[in-house]
């Protein structure tokens, strides 16, 4: 019975991880931009949800389209200003420079957040937060169910978007071979710009969930570390795999609490990651190079 409760929390946590990591899977996995500031963007998304709730009374789930829009625009500006100059770099140099630039971004964003919003923790407490329903003797939080559904919709939605739509496939094409894509008539600049914007706006959804747990200016780095691990676990370039990798990590962490105690769950999940890397370094779900 107890294990069941852990698994439920594990699935919910895993879904949050997936929601945060999916944007990074697009920006880093496919576009090749080592975006260390990704966690900070989720933090901003959470703050947007918080302030919309606090000042305008908007429910955090209902305000998602609005926060997605705001982050999309921020993403466009960020790409144009910082990363567009790197489009023609070799993959190695692109990763290196984008990592450095995004590190600078982390410093700026975190400190601006402290200056504007103070370092205090914030949380969205709706009327339904903490409410649960009964499932075979286990308690399932309503917000948890919504989180899992959102994770499935977003991750697989993005996956199919990239596979089936022309725009999505052109993003792939650019990531495979920049010059070739240009010669094929794809407007590379505009495509990358919008793709980056999409990746950023996805963090708004994660942010809406995170805001109901707690948000403060310093949570960015921990989230990006987790997301990096999930993106690699799923296989760099895989989008759908992010959901399963997130779930795996979440459930493993929760269940291992039962065996090693809550203070060592982090170690367990990381050790499992290492084992997977050793035996299947390309990640669980990558089908080799390509889609």
């Amino acid at each position, binding site marked *: 019975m*107890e294990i069941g*409760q*852990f698994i439920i*929390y594990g699935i919910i*946590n895993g879904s949050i991880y997936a929601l945060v990591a999916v944007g990074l899977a697009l920006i880093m996995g496919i576009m090749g931009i080592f975006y260390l500031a990704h966690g900070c963007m989720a933090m901003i998304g959470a703050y947007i949800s918080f302030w919309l709730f606090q000042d305008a009374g908007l429910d955090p789930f209902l305000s998602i389209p609005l926060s997605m829009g705001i982050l999309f625009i921020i993403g466009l500006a960020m790409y144009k200003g910082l990363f567009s100059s790197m489009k023609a770099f070799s993959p190695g140099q692109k990763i290196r420079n984008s990592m450095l630039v995004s590190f600078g971004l982390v410093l700026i964003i975190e*400190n601006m957040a*402290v200056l504007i919003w*103070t*370092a*205090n*923790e*914030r*949380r969205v*407490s709706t009327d339904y*937060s*903490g409410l*649960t329903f009964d499932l075979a003797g286990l*308690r399932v*939080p309503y917000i948890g169910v919504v989180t899992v559904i959102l994770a499935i919709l977003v991750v697989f939605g993005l996956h199919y978007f990239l596979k089936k739509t022309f725009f999505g496939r052109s993003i792939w094409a650019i990531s495979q071979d920049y010059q070739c894509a240009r010669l094929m008539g794809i407007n590379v600049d505009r495509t990358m710009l919008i793709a980056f914007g999409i990746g950023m706006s996805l963090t708004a959804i994660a942010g809406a969930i995170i805001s109901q*747990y*707690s948000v*403060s*200016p*310093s*949570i960015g780095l*921990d989230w990006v570390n987790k997301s990096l691990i999930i993106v690699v676990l799923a296989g760099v370039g895989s989008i759908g795999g992010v959901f399963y990798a997130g779930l795996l990590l979440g459930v493993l*962490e*929760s269940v291992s*609490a*039962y065996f090693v*105690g*809550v*203070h*060592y*769950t*982090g170690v367990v999940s990381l050790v499992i990651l290492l084992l997977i890397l050793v035996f299947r370094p390309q990640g669980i779900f990558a089908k080799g190079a390509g889609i």
Partner: protein
Amino acid sequence: MRKGNFITAAGILSFSLVFLLLPFMGGQSYGGAPEKIKVGASVALTGKFAGGGVDVADGYKLAQKHINEDGGIYVKEYDKKLPIEIIIYDDESDPNKTVARLEKLNSVDKVVAYLGGFSSAMNTAGLAIAEKNKVPWVGVTIAAEGVFSQGFKYTFAPCMFSFMEVTAFYDALDSLPESQRPKKIANFELQSDWGIECGKYLKEFGQKRGYEITLTEKYAKGTSDFSSLIMAAKAAGCDAVFSVPTPPQSMTLIKQMKELGYAPPVTCFIRGPDLSNYWEVMGKDANYILTCGEWSPDMKYPGNERLVKDFREEKKTEIIGMQVGCGYGAVQVLADAIERGGTLDSKAIRDALTKTDMVTVRGHVTFDERGIGMVPYSLCQWQNGKLEVVTNPDHTTAKVVPAPPWDQR
């Protein structure tokens, strides 16, 4: 390539010059008879601990303002009152930087005493430097007794330590009528030095006072899922829970306790919920939580009214963080010692500190031979949006209220 080497070398030389300019940044040191009393602090104004750090710094600045408004500190050696200047540097929540800043305050700014920073990690580094430099250090937000048992002579902390928090907790339990008093206590033990100390004292004092620590569950700083601890406590039928979580853990714990339907009559979380915006963040769920009560704007100690009035006027906000009062109190202790010492010599100030016996905005302060402050043991409880003082030898504003089950709130 030779040109490149030259430019590189020139670049390095110019940067070296920067190092030489460092002494002229931040503070200036004057020679001759002092115009003011210089005291220094390295506080987390940015980074993870900025929330509490800014509060401590605000307390220092307000105390400085009031002392100078009253004419300053009388120093017998010069037979006059000198104003106090508190130089505050940012250590960016990094203990490595705390060391560098304190060294600068000593070598360059030539301060006569240090004030502490915010939180154990920075303070532990800081007080060691104070001891090494033989400069007296007065700080708050340090709660691990082990840190103060190294035989250091120059460090003083007028704040509540682990054994005091636990004693206050048991006092709060004792204050409940027999029929409502919890018997089985769950200790959610944070794996940090002071969390483990609290665990030790819970057991030790519990035995003497007739309480049972039914279960001890460990967790770490990075833990974000407390379901296993809560379910264990629920299954064991514990009617009180004690822990020392910092945010965000102090929020996640309550949220999950609500989700899992666990509502012990007494919940005592020291640290996290003492932040003034806890109610704002948690809403009604914060009700009934006992937390640290070192200082509250409602306390009636001398000087508190002035502090509260000035702070609210300046910052235009009702909410005052607990550390503002604690920081203010630390400056009061230091100023009093400087005056009693009669000179600005570090050793004299240190000796005067050992004989401290005064009432500050947070109550009566003396020090034991380790430098641990003997301050009033005090706890607060969140009651309908307000932090009421429920355990305190001098003033309480309300009684401890046991919590009803979640569905009855």
